[in-house]
């Protein structure tokens, strides 16, 4: 179904972090940006579609002052809003927002870090662009920061802080089907596996909470009103977001899942884990009849590699890319 394409070499190896690959497809310029986090750096490579040009760029985490130890980056993700695209980088010290090509930093938000380290780690993790002009970022305390983003310029403001989760945020996602009819448009996940479902607006509204049953959730997506969540136990669960009804449960992987992704136009689902496997599934979701179907389509094994990032490169799922711990390349697969 898929075959391996030429890999893209990156300047450093990928660190073992959840969702450690972000992809932004820029059709007008016929290129795709990829970002991979290595310790305190983001490796960005822009690949032209004809495979002839690769431009590299490295972004460092912002240090409040040089004398303190380096701030490790937890996640880097592209945020696509109607008016603009931004690259958001979250670290132990705060949140940086760049123009999507990584050229200029447009915003910096510092986290409250204590003078001396405490047993509870401090960091930001979990990034999502939400309808219509919000960027949400999670924090280790469980709080979710909601930023209001103007259509241009750097006048980004913190609009709200959502305090519902009690454990560190792991990932979050906005409704990606493009449908305006969905009531819920954000799902957030935490270390305890708890999921919160929200409706965005001037004041975000909590629509539902789905408990975790002591399984940590590391990666989450929202499509056609259905939450797709990947867990540390290797399970993937599909829940109806607003009601919390469990529609499907997949014993998908033998180790901790690090990434799930959806190709919204085709309903393809991608999952990747520490067990070296990337799996492709197909989901059929009909919200009107409340029916959900999932079938398994394909496996790819990245030998001797704990996978930390896997994303579709386009909305149909024609191609996908994978990163692994200690690997200095982005591996690509395209449909045969």
């Amino acid at each position, binding site marked *: 179904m898929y075959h391996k394409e030429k890999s893209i070499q990156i300047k*450093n*190896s990928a*660190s073992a972090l959840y969702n450690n690959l972000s992809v932004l497809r820029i059709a007008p310029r016929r290129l795709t940006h990829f970002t991979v986090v*290595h*310790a305190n750096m983001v490796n960005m490579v822009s690949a032209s579609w004809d495979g002839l040009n690769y431009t590299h760029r490295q972004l460092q985490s912002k240090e409040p002052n*040089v*004398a*303190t*130890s*380096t701030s*490790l980056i*937890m996640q880097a993700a592209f945020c696509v809003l109607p008016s603009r695209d931004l690259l958001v980088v979250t670290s*132990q010290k705060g949140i940086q927002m760049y123009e999507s090509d990584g050229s200029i930093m447009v915003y910096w938000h510092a986290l409250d870090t204590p003078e*001396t*380290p*405490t*047993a509870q*780690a401090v*960091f930001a993790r979990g990034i999502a662009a939400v309808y219509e002009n919000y960027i949400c970022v999670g924090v280790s305390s469980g709080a979710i920061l909601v930023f209001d983003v103007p259509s241009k310029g750097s006048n980004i403001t913190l609009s709200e802080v959502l305090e519902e989760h009690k*454990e*560190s945020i*792991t990932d979050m996602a906005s409704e990606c089907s493009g449908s305006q009819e969905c009531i819920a448009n954000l799902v957030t996940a*935490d*270390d*305890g596996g708890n999921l919160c479902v929200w409706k965005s607006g001037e004041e975000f509204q909590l629509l539902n909470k789905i408990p975790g049953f*002591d*399984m*940590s959730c*590391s990666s989450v997506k929202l499509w056609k009103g259905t939450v797709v969540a990947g867990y*540390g*136990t*290797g*399970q993937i669960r599909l829940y109806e977001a607003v009601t919390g*009804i*469990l529609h*499907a*449960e*997949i*014993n*998908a*992987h*033998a*180790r*901790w899942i690090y990434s799930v992704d959806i190709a919204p136009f085709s309903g393809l689902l991608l999952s990747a884990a520490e*067990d*070296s*496997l990337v799996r492709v599934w197909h989901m059929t979701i009909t919200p009107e009849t409340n029916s*959900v*179907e*999932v*079938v*398994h389509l394909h*496996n790819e*094994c990245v030998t*001797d*590699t*704990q996978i930390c990032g896997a994303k579709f490169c386009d909305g149909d799922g024609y191609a996908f890319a994978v990163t692994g*711990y*200690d690997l*200095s390349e982005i591996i690509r697969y395209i449909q045969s």
Partner: protein
Amino acid sequence: MSSRTLPLLFINLGGEMLYILDQRLRAQNIPADKAKKVMNDIITTMFNKKFLEELFKPQELYSKKALRTVFDRLAHASIMRLNQASMDKLYDLMTMAFKYQVLLCPRPKDILLVSFNHMDAIKDFVKDTPSILSQVDETYRQFFFNTNIGEFQLIRQTLLIFFQDMHIRVSIFLKDKVQNSNGRFVLPTSGPVPHGTQVPGLIRIFSCTGEEITRLKFNNGGNYTTALREGSFDIFGDRVTKLGTNMYSVSRPVETHMSGTSKNSAQHTKVSAAPNPLAKEELNLLARLMGGLEVQKPGNTDTDFRINLFATDEEEEEALISRPDELSYGVINIQATKDQQANAELAKIMGEFTESGDQSPSVSNKGDDLLAMMDGL
């Protein structure tokens, strides 16, 4: 990242160090009483109260250089001496072994089981004086008492950043086929799944009322079996996992391969050394930690002896010369002396650290500040 990683790193690396030293002491036919003294001295130093207090404070992970300094000092806590080449090799083996254990832990929480395996073995080394370790058990368990699974994964991820890009080939791993010739560890897609995980291969679809409507099987591409029973987290018990147990014996020599490490490793170890390894903050923490390591007076030359991690002295010399630059730890041998002298030594060493690596001008007064801090103690 996690501020609770240092004790795990220290105890597990320390455990590996003891396994290797024990093997070398036997291989070199060091008299039993001397060998026992060395093991006892090192273990007592590792677990002394003041040192443990510093170790268990929530703090960021040290750089490789800084941690190596701590282990250098530890290895010289007794009448045993090691040349630089042997110390380098010892540290390579320790770190690759623990990297392997961290990578292969089925669940992040299992790193505790690996630690308990190490601690069980250490207890056995000092079984004649068991009181040394009673403190540690309690401290360890209390420290990790309320850590949830997500936090254990964060600890694991922090450790993996510490070990990033290390691909030194260890002959015992190559022989056992747990490491490939390019230095990367083998991750099998077979065997028992972790405790709490189901064997992959099943899709279940439910109705709105919770009934199972469909059950589909799929090919998981591997050869998995159901999970084994969970290892014990108690003071005594069967840990189930073999990770963290002693893999060395007299007949299995300890070798590492320096040449032929994958050509990318040079580039990458340089890059990973770049993040300001000894920021002022870290120096202060390190000084406190080292201050807690009680220093032995140097023994008489007739009781002191040298341990060699290589088969012959010539090999050891050769190893020192041929060690690739990018893999050198840049550590100066520390002579164990009286405390005051040691502190001055320490400050000097810290000052010397500023010469190498990308240090920015604003931290050039590190040495002075540290001396001032020492005076205040």
